[in-house]
């Protein structure tokens, strides 16, 4: 029972990281209608920046996180402007191939800069842990911070898209780019803004991910990236609470699957979930179905 609780808490912790990544995916997919395959690699860049800031420049953890957010935000906006914006009218096949290209580009640049040896990422948070059941069940500070960060981010994003002018513009662009443009909304700037927010979230996700799983490599972001996309689809792409629920569920399923079914097949389970969700509920748990105009 205690071990089940431990797996559950680990699952929620991992799921919270997925949820933060999924929020970035869901915003970009909801507004720009494209699968930003490189999102996972922005996470990796964020983790490296934070690592370098702490390791080589001796900056305090909070500053390193802020530095990572600034760099990733800039990176996201640059990627969008250079690689994705020219393809706004292009077929989705071309956009996806470009995004895969960007993903490989980031991974290989990271490989050239930081090498392939895994870096040992020191946790950004060093508060104590909660011990329950006579120390058998440990809830680490990373877990608590991850969950807290996840909740704060979700509330902030919901308020942002619901209350602010830019948030409303985002929703308008998501519904109909052409009509939004006619209403005087700067579509390019809105999409840039979406990438900026998504990438800043990716930086936070990177730090959270590496605090929980401290090996940092150029490929660190790709698997969690794909899984977080699964989470976003699971929850209903474009939906902010959906991304959170999807992320949590997926994290729990993965950890429990690895614990009780097979370690080797943990990833396969997650992907099987993706396939099942897409086949039977393609709009996800909280998404709305769309139909093509004939």
């Amino acid at each position: 029972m205690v071990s089940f609780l431990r797996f559950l808490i680990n699952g929620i912790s991992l799921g919270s990281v997925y949820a933060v990544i999924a929020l970035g995916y869901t915003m970009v997919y909801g507004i720009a209608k494209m699968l930003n395959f490189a999102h996972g690699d922005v996470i990796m860049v964020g983790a490296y920046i934070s690592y370098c800031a702490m390791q080589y420049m001796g900056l305090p953890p909070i500053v390193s996180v802020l530095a990572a957010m600034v760099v990733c935000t800039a990176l996201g906006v640059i990627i969008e402007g250079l690689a994705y914006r020219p393809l706004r009218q292009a077929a989705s096949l071309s956009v996806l191939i470009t995004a895969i290209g960007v993903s490989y580009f980031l991974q290989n640049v990271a490989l050239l800069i930081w090498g392939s040896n895994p870096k040992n990422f020191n946790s950004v948070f060093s508060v104590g842990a909660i011990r329950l059941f006579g120390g058998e069940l440990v809830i680490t500070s990373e877990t608590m911070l991850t969950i807290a960060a996840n909740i704060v981010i979700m509330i902030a994003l919901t308020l942002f898209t619901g209350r602010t002018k830019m948030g409303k513009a985002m929703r308008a662009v998501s519904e109909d780019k052409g009509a939004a443009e006619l209403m005087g909304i700067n579509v390019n700037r809105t999409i840039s803004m979406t990438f900026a927010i998504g990438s800043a979230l990716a930086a936070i996700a990177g730090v959270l991910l590496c605090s929980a799983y401290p090996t940092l490599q150029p490929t660190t972001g790709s698997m969690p990236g794909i899984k977080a996309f699964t989470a976003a689809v699971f929850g209903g792409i474009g939906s902010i609470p959906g991304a959170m629920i999807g992320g949590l569920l997926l994290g729990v399923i993965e950890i429990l699957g690895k614990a009780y079914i097979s370690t080797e097949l943990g990833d396969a389970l997650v992907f099987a979930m993706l396939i099942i969700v897409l086949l039977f509920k393609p709009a996800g748990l909280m998404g709305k179905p769309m139909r093509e105009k004939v």
Partner: protein
Amino acid sequence: MKMKKKTLSNLITYAIVILAFVLCQWLIASGRMTRSLKGQMVPICVYVVMAVSLNLVVGISGELSLGHAGFMSVGAFAGVIASAWMAGAFAMENELLRLLLAMVVGGVVAGVAGVLIGIPVLRLRGDYLAIVTLAFGEIIRNVLNCLYFSLEGSRLHVSFNNPNLPGTILVNGPNGAKDVAKIATFPVGFALILFTLFVVLNLINSRSGRAIMASRDNRIAAEAMGINVTKYKMMAFVTSAVLAGMAGALYGLNFSTITAAKFKFDTSILVLVFVVLGGIGNIRGSIIAAALLTVLPELLRAFNDYRMLIYAIVLILVMLATNNPTIRGLFTRLVPQKHSGTEIVEAKGGAEE
């Protein structure tokens, strides 16, 4: 007039392949080819077949598949096991026959996998379809890591997640297959390329091929014309899987060890780079791109560190260029009236449908 043009274009493609083969054979016979390059001959054939077969799905059928290496791995393991079984159980000495049969087995098993995967995948569209092919590629790799095969006399044992099998171990879970009899040869690789071209080019220029391309260009119109879109997408997908499986078997029997890790997502992307660089829908382009990009890193060793980086940049630049109206306009003026398969296809976004 048009028939002649298409036929001529196809004949040129065959001619290029045959000439390249003759040239390579001459280089090998006259001792002008380095050993390392000679070792690349079979992989080149394998990647050419992989690229052409992926182009059938991406270019002709218009669906982005990111799990093509999965079919290759299925074919590789099926072929390696079949070859060892034929040698062990029937004492089949003839290596050529064993290789050909192993390739058939690899193709059939990959084809079955193609059907099983195609049924769910082809119900999806656009980005979702692409992501699910990626998911299946990863699932195949995970499952292969859990599979164990052994040969006891003429009996083949299989187990899932249990390494304790009687007899000689053929496939050892994540450690893959060891001491594989290296029976793959360059001439057979060349023959496989010709076979692939024959199948793919003849398919494109037939009633079925036109239905596949119509389904790509406009799904709704194709259905309104009485075309069973799913059937034809399936036809392209499974044909492609069979060819990838045959290539996989050839690949598996070219090395003494083979593990599922060799068929990672990176391999699928590598093949996609060949297809994109050769021109989506352009079969001849795929052949040239696959051959050149497999040889080049061998020739330019120093450039190896930057290889994937350059591929990534190539992917982005080719996509930006082919979608740029100015460049496209220039291109269509230079090459007027291209064959129907050679244009960048228009796939609608998954979310819209």
